[in-house]
């Protein structure tokens, strides 16, 4: 196996851009509104304010495997 042979991710994800919130991320993800996106990312949806999303967070853009 070579370094280029990256395995497929368990779940597709993205990192928020600095300053990006749920609305902006939902706009980047096809077939996902804010509520759906949050339901796939409870680790972030449950985070108390004021810091909601950070640029190194993992935001899943698909649901967990069944």
């Amino acid at each position, binding site marked *: 196996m070579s*370094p280029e042979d*990256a395995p497929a991710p368990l779940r597709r994800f993205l990192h928020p851009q600095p300053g990006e919130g749920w609305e902006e991320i939902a706009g980047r993800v096809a077939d996902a509104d804010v509520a759906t996106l949050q339901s796939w990312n409870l*680790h972030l949806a*449950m985070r108390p304010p004021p*810091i909601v999303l*950070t*640029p*190194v967070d*993992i935001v*899943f853009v698909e649901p967990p495997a069944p």
Partner: protein
Amino acid sequence: MFDLIIRQGRICDGSGAPSFIGDVGVRDGRIAAVGPNLGEAGRIVDASGHAVAPGFIDPHTHYDAQLTWDGLAQPSLEHGVTTVIPGNCSLSLAPLRAEHREFLGAVFRQIEEMPKSAFDAGIEWTWESMAEYNETITRDLGVNVAPLAGHSLLRLWVLGYESRDRASTPEEVRALCDLLRECLDGGALGMSTSFSDVDHEFRPVPSRLASMEELNALCAVLGERNRPLQLLPEFWAADLLATRIDIMAELSLRHGISVTFSPLFESASTPGLVEAAVERLELHAARGARVTAQMQTRPLDMTFDMSQVSAVFSAMPTWMGTLLSGHEAIQGAFRDPATRETLARETETDRMPIALDFHLSRTRLSAATGSAHADVGRTLGEIGEERGLHPAEVMMDISLEEDLKARFTASGLGHYDDAKIGVALNHPQIQIGAGDGGAHVQRFATYGDTSYLFSRFVRERKALSLERAVQRLSADIAEIWGIQGRGRLIPGQAADITIFDPETFDRGPEEMAFDLPDAGESFRFIRRSTGMKEVLVGGESVYRAESGYSQARRGAIVEGASR
């Protein structure tokens, strides 16, 4: 003529090869010879019946504060640990500008659970840079130290308090990289970061506000010198952790660095997590990535009281808010019927699991001095059934009676599946670590994971051979972290040596010690060792079973790798 010969010991040289009976000769702080009948020396140690092994390396500690008042990192040394790596999880105590000391102290005390009275009494702030911090601790150092530069501190230095709120600009990224180089020049082994910690105000620590571009730039600096990155990932969910391992692998491959994360924690609340992580680690190892998980040896119990925040409540926002509100406010909340009901209900929810199998009904009252003293040792569930109350209400009532000083112990929070853990502790992509030495001092004893490895997993479970256990604690960790000249019993290496009885080496019971630098105002939990005959650092005896700790101070800031 040697300075010292350790005679007729069972030599486990750190390679994992079969042990053999022989002598170890020491000269000028280094191992000079290993073999049969080495002759004469200034001092002879009879090691017959004992294992002779390289000093152990503890890769996950938070001794940053303790090392300023205790250069021996007690009692880790008597468990065979001769090198400690502090500064994990984005938090070191340097580099730190004077104006940020109060803030950083609050963050450090909150996350690493160090009593404020001890922290304030023990630390004399004589440094700002990493080099100055190292100079301070080396004045009285009996253990070797491989400090990490905390990413949160780097950001705090460059961005000030804005590091808590925003990503860095390109110019600030360049300044961060320069600062990291300065830290490496000043003795830092590598860098640590965190994707999980929250500070004393329940906000993400500064490292979590970094962009991936910033993290990549800093890893490129580590790559210039083949230095390691340690990080605290989202360790409580299998898919999150697996994804973060993927990210670590890309950092490792892109920059040619060793990346290690902690903890890899096994618990019933996270079924399949360890297996998922190991599968991912193996996939990336096959690609050439150098990513390793750290796993502790001991099961997790935790003692807490209601005067301050404890990790067992970290998934419960109302509890966190209440326990952060101060002594009188906490008491007020516990007396308020509506708040009591909310708090009780919250202990039954599972809103953001953090891998702890925490059940309040099974939590025991472990210390009380008033009328509740008679209930010490009973579970809150048992007491609640008797009183017709929810276990949380029992805990609040007893805490009110005891001015919030009653202590409770939650046992079996995780990491108790010995069969699974025994296999994991042998895995090449897992290193033995994550012990948290010097942190959480009033929650549990973070000392003795090394001796527990021998008693539990070598002798009782037979999951590892004696030689393999020694290798796992010494040479393997030195290799992963790029620590030079330590970890093996071979000529030329530093004479960091442990001499222990392989049949009795163990950790003692958890006990309270009032040895923090605040004149007994606070305590810490410790464990002494049994079966350890002698520990040497740099060729000098720093601990002997019959006489305790010595005045030898041969500890050093260890040398990291270079390209």
